């Protein structure tokens, strides 16, 4: 099947995307996030910071079914594909919204590859409004089950996973575990006996993150035992594309906000956007964002319609998105001057989300190395 010229992005996706945009801008996620941060500002002296989670907003989102849009109809999902998911996540990124929606959508693309009644059961829980995350990174940050991975024996897990995203907002965790060199996927309830959670103190204020340790934890098997962590390999292009979409959204906010500032901030009797040292880099930020956005929709449409080409398209998208994240964050803060460096400015919130996303699942260099092998 060929990738449709317009990425199969129709009225339906457009309506969904604008609904998400309206929703996010109505709830103003950053103003409620800010009140939760009071007293935690100083990394040396401040209080411990809990990941902020607006439960009410999540309930409203799930009543609209956005968390289930990519799940199969069999589980009560909308079966809409990655192009639709990407459209939603772009808006979440634009609003820098603290929400488990991203990880739950990612989890649904993993679940789709597991082909089991148990995986459908987890999918139904998502349909019912439960947030689910996933992860299997080692403490050095590698995503390779053959190195220090969690071990399974008779349904019981031992080991640890690290850098799990939005952990505090979720009830359950999907992860691969190995048994005699082969890998299957499991679901663990995060409050089950033997599970302990170590919360990370992270730079990004809009997400939370942590490690999960398993000391003989009972888990439910979701997939067959397969070589090469196939479930992950098949879902991976979708995961990379979703994070890239989040970046495209956050970077667009950074661009628009910095452009607005450049039109209104007067120095040397002119708006600073008059000066080419300000104007031209802003154009370059736009060029970065547009390239990323095009690659994101291309990767999503390729995943939906031409699976065999999905990996290179997704590697390109994340390679591009990582650079866009770094560059837009960098120019956004720099061109705001002192005000952009303050805690008070939202620029810092986006800057941190962007550089966090830049490195999630690997940065540009990492993905280019893998892509090069395919050229």
């Amino acid at each position, binding site marked *: 099947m060929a990738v449709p*010229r*317009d*990425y199969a*992005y*129709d*009225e339906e*996706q*457009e309506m969904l995307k604008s609904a998400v945009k309206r929703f996010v801008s109505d709830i103003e996620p950053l103003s409620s996030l800010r009140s939760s941060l009071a007293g935690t500002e100083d990394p040396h002296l401040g209080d411990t910071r809990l990941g902020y989670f607006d439960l009410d907003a999540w309930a409203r989102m799930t009543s609209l079914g956005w968390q289930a849009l990519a799940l199969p109809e069999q589980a009560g999902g909308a079966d809409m594909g990655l192009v639709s998911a990407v459209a939603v996540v772009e808006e979440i990124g634009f609003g820098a919204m603290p929400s488990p929606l991203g990880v739950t959508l990612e989890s649904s693309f993993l679940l789709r590859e597991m082909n089991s009644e148990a995986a459908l059961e987890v999918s139904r829980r998502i349909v019912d409004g439960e947030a689910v995350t996933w992860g299997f990174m080692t403490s050095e940050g590698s995503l390779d089950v053959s190195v220090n991975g969690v071990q399974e024996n008779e349904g019981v897990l031992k080991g640890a996973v690290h850098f799990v995203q939005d952990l505090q907002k979720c009830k359950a965790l999907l992860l691969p575990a190995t048994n005699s060199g082969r890998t299957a996927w499991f679901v663990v309830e995060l409050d089950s006996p033997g599970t302990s959670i170590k919360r990370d103190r992270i730079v990004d204020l809009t997400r939370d993150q942590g490690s999960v340790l398993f000391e003989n934890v009972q888990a439910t098997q979701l997939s067959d035992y397969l070589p090469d962590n196939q479930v992950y390999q098949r879902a991976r292009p979708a995961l990379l594309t979703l994070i890239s979409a989040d970046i495209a959204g956050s970077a667009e906010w950074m661009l628009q906000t910095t*452009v607005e500032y*450049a*039109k209104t901030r007067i120095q040397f009797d*002119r*708006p600073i*956007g*008059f000066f*080419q040292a*300000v*104007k*031209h880099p*802003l*154009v*370059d930020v*736009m*060029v970065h964002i*547009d*390239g*990323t*956005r*095009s*690659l994101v*929709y*291309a990767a999503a449409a390729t995943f939906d319609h031409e699976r065999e080409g999905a990996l290179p398209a997704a590697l*390109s998208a994340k*390679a*591009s998105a990582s650079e866009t994240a770094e560059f837009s964050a960098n120019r956004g803060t720099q061109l705001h001057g002192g005000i952009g460096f303050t805690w008070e400015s939202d620029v810092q919130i986006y800057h941190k989300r962007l550089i966090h996303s830049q490195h999630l699942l690997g940065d*540009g*260099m990492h993905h*280019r*190395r893998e*892509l*090069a092998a395919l*050229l």
Partner: protein
Amino acid sequence: MALDRSFKDQVEFAAYCREWLAKNRPEPTRIPLPQAAYEVTLPEHREYLEDWQNKCYKAGLIATDLPVEYGGHGFEGFQQVATSEVQKANVPYFINWIGLGMAAPTLLTHGTESQKRNFLPTIFSAKDIWCQGFSEPGAGSDLASLQAKAERKGDSWIVNGSKVWNSLGALASWMLLLVRTDRNDKYGGLTYFVCAMDSPGVSVKPIHKMTGESGFNEVHLEDVVIPDDQRVDEVGAGWKVAMSTLTSERGAATGVGAVASSDSPMSHVERLVDLAKSTTRNGLSSWDDPAVRDRITRLYVRVSALVENGKRAQSKHLSGSAMRLPLQFKLVHSEILQEIHQVALSILGPSSSLYVGDADAVEEGKWALGYMNTYTNTISGGSSEIQRNILGERVLGLPKTK
């Protein structure tokens, strides 16, 4: 000129184009063609390229979607298909690139009915080659400061002044000409004409480029008489018409079939990969050098983004605000092309010094020559700096630099 057959859809038309191009690919010329249409000067190249363009026109690959009464083929939504097949086929470029990419779209938008009927068919067939007389020694980026002037005399205009950097001027029979008709109004005092290059008083003097090639020219105009029916749009509307020409020039990739250089950016990246794989230094292939490989892969990603930008610009919902993507095309394309050549020279190392004509030069010295010629794209048609001003001002709404 209507093709006397019909096609069910784009897929069927694409198949037809592919088949036609495969069957009709011309034999190479005795002396190799220059890398792009800008540098064509030899009569034998000219004839060969005119003949090639005319064949493509007759086959429906040029003016594909234009009305039959102007020499078009009257299809809908097929031009893009034809252009992309031509680019993929690795065939010679179209010599009348300025005619196809600039003159035709300008005349279609601003020309009179009789101008369209008279000029368009011979642009498509390459019977008449066109050039562009905008820049002057004192007016480059600040084009509207130009001084060549036209004064009305009865039903005609008398034109005096000097144009420069005029590409294809030595081969052209017609010129798009922007001149001043009012000294007191910088932008509103400009008027747009088409001028026959064989008019008495027109003289053309070739200029050599940094590559040593020729291709652009000085054009002097001394009491040249231009009939008023060769005026395009109103007196004083020249700036508006010139902007529409430049918009076509910058986005000319699909236009009415314009292909100034038959290489797509992706084919350049592919050749760069091949170059790296086939070059060894210190016993190692350049491709195995992680620094080289990362630079090339980064270019691959940027070119992929450029290609996808082109597709997204056509999509109904994802294209964003109207000019945001189209205005980026020339800037991004030209800078990527330049960097591709810079990386190629790095891979070649010391042998990047060997130029066209040296028996040991890799690929006949095309990388060194091509490198220099990439400045054509970053300077002409509004430099990269000017493109950034335009994007910053027109798309982002930042205050005007002037």
